[in-house]
């Protein structure tokens, strides 16, 4: 099985450790991972701002980089959802459809494809899980509080395999953090207020770390935490699932 690693642009530039953790974790699970080097971005920043017509370059790059592999795995539900819903290629729609059927968010890939039953990860902390909306409501990574339906959570399922990790309960377990792409600056006041309210829920419930399957939510939350000079940290779920015994204690 060959997996192509799809690294979102802002993770490539600002959070390489998240991509490294994803790569190492997949390798630990005996997956053959390659990183197509000419990838840039899925095009979501433009598309969500209304400029879908400017994503042609990103679309064709994506298709060039990711057509030849069994699976595409990405540590971001939001970017995966964008590819699944909005990847187009003039005259090559079959290639776009093929990619859409084999692109997976990391926790989804671990749960549904690799069907991971155990992990050798250790993380001795109280952790608050932020449900990133696009992963949750878009990719169904976990059940949504609005629906009258049986609960499940792929992210929680994996976090429960981590030694020492304690999940803290939240008062509102799937409210948006307020990042929202360009929303975070075009609606700055509401965006920050949403972030502050999400953080208060985690902090008041005793979280030492806040994790999520999307680094963009965490980047926004971290910006507020550091302005507040908080001791609480953010950490991407790939880093927790990849944390080894030797690194901790």
């Amino acid at each position, binding site marked *: 099985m060959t997996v192509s690693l799809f690294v979102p*642009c802002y*993770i*490539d*530039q*600002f*959070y*390489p*450790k998240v991509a*490294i953790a994803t*790569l190492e974790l997949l390798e630990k699970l005996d997956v053959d991972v390659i*990183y197509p*080097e*000419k990838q*840039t*971005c899925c095009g979501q920043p*433009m*598309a*969500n*701002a*209304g*400029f*879908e*017509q*400017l994503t*042609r*370059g*990103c679309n064709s790059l994506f298709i060039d980089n990711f057509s030849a592999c069994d699976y595409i795995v990405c540590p971001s539900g939001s970017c995966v959802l964008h590819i699944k819903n909005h990847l187009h290629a003039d005259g090559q729609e079959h290639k776009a459809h093929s990619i859409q059927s084999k692109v997976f968010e990391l926790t989804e890939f671990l749960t549904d494809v690799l069907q991971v039953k155990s992990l050798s990860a250790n993380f001795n902390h109280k952790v608050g899980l932020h449900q990133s*909306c696009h992963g949750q*409501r878009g990719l169904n990574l976990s059940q*949504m509080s*609005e*629906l*009258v339906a049986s609960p499940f959570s792929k992210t929680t399922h994996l976090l429960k395999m981590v030694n020492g990790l304690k999940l803290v309960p939240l008062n*509102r377990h*799937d*409210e*948006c953090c*307020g*990042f*929202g*792409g*360009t*929303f*975070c*600056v*075009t*609606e*700055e*006041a*509401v*965006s*920050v207020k*949403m*972030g502050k309210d999400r953080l208060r829920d985690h902090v008041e419930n005793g979280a030492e770390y806040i994790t999520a399957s999307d680094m963009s939510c965490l*980047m*926004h939350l*971290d*910006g*507020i935490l550091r*302005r507040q000079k908080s001791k609480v940290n953010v950490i991407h779920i790939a880093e927790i699932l990849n944390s080894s015994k030797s690194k901790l204690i």
Partner: protein
Amino acid sequence: MNSRHTDHATRAEKFNLDESRVDWHDKTLWFIREKRDKAAWQIPEWEQLRETASQIKNNVLSNLHDYLIEFEKNAQKNGATVHWASTPAEHNKIVLDIIKQAGARNIVKSKSMLTEECHLNEYLTAHGIDVVDTDLGERIVQLAGEPPSHIVLPCIHWKKEEIGELFHQELGTPKGNADPQLLTNAARLNLRNHFMTSRVAITGVNFAVAETGEIVVCTNEGNADLGVQLADVHIACMGLEKIIPRRKHLGVFLRLLARSATGQPITTYSSHFKKPREGQQWHIVLLDNGRSERLGSNDFRNALKCIRCAACFNTCPVYRRSGGHSYHTTVAGPIGSILAPGLDMKKNADLPFASTLCGSCSNVCPVKIDIHDQLYKWRQVLVRNGHVSAIKAIGMKGMAAVLSYPFIYNTSGSLGRWIMRYFPFLFSNRANLWYKQREMPKAPEKSFREWYIKNRKKK
């Protein structure tokens, strides 16, 4: 794009100046979302009910022409006079003519978002008619000279102490008294006088049944009934999309409506109006106002399924933290943000952007409108039609240019991170909206790509 002084972001920023009030507003509406959840969980087949309602509404939209004619024929048989209006101006003139014909100077009106959409109150007032809103929440905002901030809870942005002060000034209640029972009683006594003296009563319409020619009006206060029963003339104002095919379909919608709206199993009054009483006139005014045009749009027709429960308002994290008036439109919240651009693209170009696209709205919607997908689609339409600021368009073109070429992306990424590390003040200043209340992410020395080439490539 709207002027800077009135767009959603500017209004929302102003709303956020009083953070404790934002907290109060958020908690009040979240409480209603939680009540909705509890009520929904009482119905094991809730999701099936939503799907059924959605399919009935799909059927209505696909056969609207036939159902409207069936409704008109049956309503006429029942003794109603049916009027058709294509614009708010036509609608308002029809209503005014009926009132004039009845020789009335003052009228009562129960809650109707359609008449808000037509700005009927202002129109009638300008023509010398005294209109009194009889829904308590609407009465409060009417006394305050404001539009409703929420379609189900029009004065949800008012605290009871503020209502006490308003009533002291307008209705003469004791100063400083904010006892809800006392205030409600004062409103009731005041309203009773208007009910007794109004010869014309206007109501909205929640559902119009094609099969029977009857309309159904849902209220918690019985104010629609009292108005209609005491008046010589009943005018019911409705949008074309309020039709349902058969009376048996009502059960599906009545079970969903109040649970979605307030968490009640059903509204206190679900009143069926089928025939005018002896000597009473009954007029039904059907308004198009862009609805038939929307019906022809594959991407946006779905929004016509809305039953105005406002569940999407209550769940929306942006609505809860920006307040209804930030939306500067009759119907606020997520559903308003997909309806308003259809009425006036230029004026409402900001609204589809007042969302993080979190998707909670679509999940609570009892008729399964794909609200957040329509928000995304409206953004594309607005930009294609040039309703976007030049600065944003240039920024997006620049971003697309960088991201379309790996070499430019990698070079500018390295350069950008280098600048961020050595000249952080270029980013850490007030001109950067991210930095206003958030720290910048720390720029690492190497990108993942650079790390990968160094550490893994030759393996």
